[in-house]
């Protein structure tokens, strides 16, 4: 739920309940006050009746304009005064009306009369209704206007926040573009903005530090690796080498070359990040693919792989080195994980490049396949090849996708995002 709708909902509820309560209270007070007034009026009338009775020795009959009904009834008891609500039948209007009555006793010529003075409350109620209308309706209108103003105000007030959100989403620690701050006079938003500017620069510098560390660590490892390699080469020249020692050496060579490759891949990842590979030029991709195919032909022949090529002459503006690494990784991936007598399909159009290959594996996890060090246990690779591929595509703003369509694994690179 959005902050604004939540706020509005609460506001609306409170206003409604408040309005009802206030309206009720208002109505009550008003009715009470008017009833009081009416009671005074009835008392006055009773006094008038008593005076009239005492002065003229006769029962008072009200004038028609007084809108009162006075009833007399002989009675024996001497009742105390009662004032209460009642209903009566209005002869002129032919309907029942709510009213207030006063009952008391008077003495005329030594006889006790019960006198009931009834006054209609219709007028009063009309009055209350119109007063309520006059007050409640403007309040309601005010409330609606307030809600509307709120809506527009908040929408414009939140604008810097929305812009901030867009900028935060656009922020990429991997790219050299710094975080774009939002200018706003509202303190809360400018605080948030400043906090994020600080955070982004910190994240950036930390990230840079880590990359630098990776790069330095990898470089530092190269020299010991060179020493190991040279010592192995020296040992290999020994004339005392037997079968057992040779096997040991073979394993050591393999491990060293794997370590070297791993180190080089890590360096590669950092380098792609650092955007060092920036020598872009127009390159005919179809030709580059054919050259790479030649480069790998022995490995392809050895596994008796069938290659299906469908290459449209396509030129891309790309760094020669990135393209080299890209194709190397695509090819070695397609060859390495292939089966004996398998297939590789390469299709190049102006918009996309697809490498499809058969494999010993069934479909792989699309979400994980480009993660670093994601590989099956039998693979002798570094587990970095595909993440390098992904990194390059990110850098070039190409879209890299993996799909599995039995028996082919497809790696699809969309050039124009």
């Amino acid at each position, binding site marked *: 739920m959005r902050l604004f709708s939540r706020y509005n909902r609460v506001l609306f509820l409170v206003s409604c309940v408040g309005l009802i309560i206030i309206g009720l209270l208002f109505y009550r007070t008003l009715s009470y006050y008017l009833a009081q007034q009416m009671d005074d009026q009835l008392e006055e009338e009773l006094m008038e009746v008593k005076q009239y009775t005492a002065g003229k020795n006769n029962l008072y009959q009200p004038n028609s304009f007084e809108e009162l009904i006075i009833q007399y009834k002989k009675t024996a008891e001497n009742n105390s005064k009662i004032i209460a609500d009642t209903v009566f039948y209005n002869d002129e209007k032919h309907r029942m009306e709510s009213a207030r009555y006063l009952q008391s006793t008077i003495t005329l010529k030594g006889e006790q009369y019960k006198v009931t003075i009834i006054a209609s409350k219709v007028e009063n109620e009309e009055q209350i209704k119109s007063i309520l209308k006059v007050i409640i309706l403007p309040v309601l209108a005010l409330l609606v206007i307030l809600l509307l103003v709120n809506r527009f105000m908040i929408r414009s007030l939140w604008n810097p926040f929305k812009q901030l959100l867009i900028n935060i989403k656009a922020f990429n620690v991997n790219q050299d573009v710094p975080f774009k701050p939002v200018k706003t006079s509202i303190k809360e938003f400018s605080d948030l903005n400043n906090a994020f500017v600080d955070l982004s620069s910190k994240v950036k510098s930390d990230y840079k530090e880590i990359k630098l560390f990776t790069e330095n660590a990898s470089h530092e490892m190269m020299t010991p690796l060179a020493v190991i390699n040279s010592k192995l080469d020296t040992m290999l020249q020994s004339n005392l080498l037997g079968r057992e020692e*040779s096997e040991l050496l073979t394993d050591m060579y*393999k491990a*060293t070359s794997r370590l070297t490759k791993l180190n*080089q891949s890590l360096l590669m990842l950092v380098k792609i990040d650092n955007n060092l590979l920036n020598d872009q030029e127009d390159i005919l991709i179809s030709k580059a693919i054919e050259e790479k195919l030649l480069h790998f032909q022995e490995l392809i022949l050895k596994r008796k792989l069938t290659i299906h090529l469908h290459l449209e002459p396509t030129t891309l503006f790309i760094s020669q080195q990135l393209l080299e690494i890209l194709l190397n990784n695509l090819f070695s991936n397609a060859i390495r994980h292939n089966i004996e007598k398998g297939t590789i399909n390469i299709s190049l159009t102006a918009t996309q490049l697809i490498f499809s290959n058969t494999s010993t594996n069934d479909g792989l996890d699309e979400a994980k396949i480009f993660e670093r060090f994601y590989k099956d246990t039998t693979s002798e690779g*570094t587990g970095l090849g595909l993440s390098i591929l992904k990194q390059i595509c990110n850098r070039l703003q190409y879209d890299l996708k993996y799909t599995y369509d039995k028996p082919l694994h497809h790696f699809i690179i969309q050039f124009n995002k």
Partner: protein
Amino acid sequence: MKILIVEDEESLQKSIHQYLIAEGNVCDCSSTYNDAYQKIALYDYDCVLLDLTLPDGEGLNLLKFIKKMNKPDGVLIISARDAVDQRIEGLSLGADDYLVKPFHLSELYARITSIIRRRQFNGSDRIVFNELEIDSHAMEVKVNSHTVYFTRKEFDLLLYFMTNKSKVISKSAAAVHIWGNDADMADSFDFIYTHIKNIRKKLTDAGCKDYFHSIYGVGYKFVES
């Protein structure tokens, strides 16, 4: 050949030194910038192996010094840094080649001889080994003066072995020589075996003796038996 090894990592320097003198070369070693500077100033070398990061100076300055002195020395940069700009800078300053650590000694030696060949014979060169003769420039292989057809990779491999003759070359080194960084593929080791088998067959079919010797699956040696 007279070679100067400028490398501050003593154990690596020692291995290179051992490997090179075994090939019958004369080698000097320097571990510091100043020492290397003096040696370069005093003597002429066929080739200088130059590490770029030295404890007391920048290797590239030595390269500039060699070029300023108009020395005939060939220069092979050996560096742990594989940055493109550094490679380009080194080569544009006049280095003959750039080898990234870690490398195989056989690869290093192949590069050194290649540099020296280029400098001494102006690019055309023949290597003769008994009845076998190869021209590294024209990429020709002749057995008893009859041309034998070799593919590019087979030729590279043969040249590699002949340059490092009577040395054992591991399959790993051979694979790196042929495929560069992509050589980690599971098949590449086996593939060297197939390649060598083809080369041997082509040579023996043409009437050449078999000079390749397998060393228990770890590598091969090109040597007169």
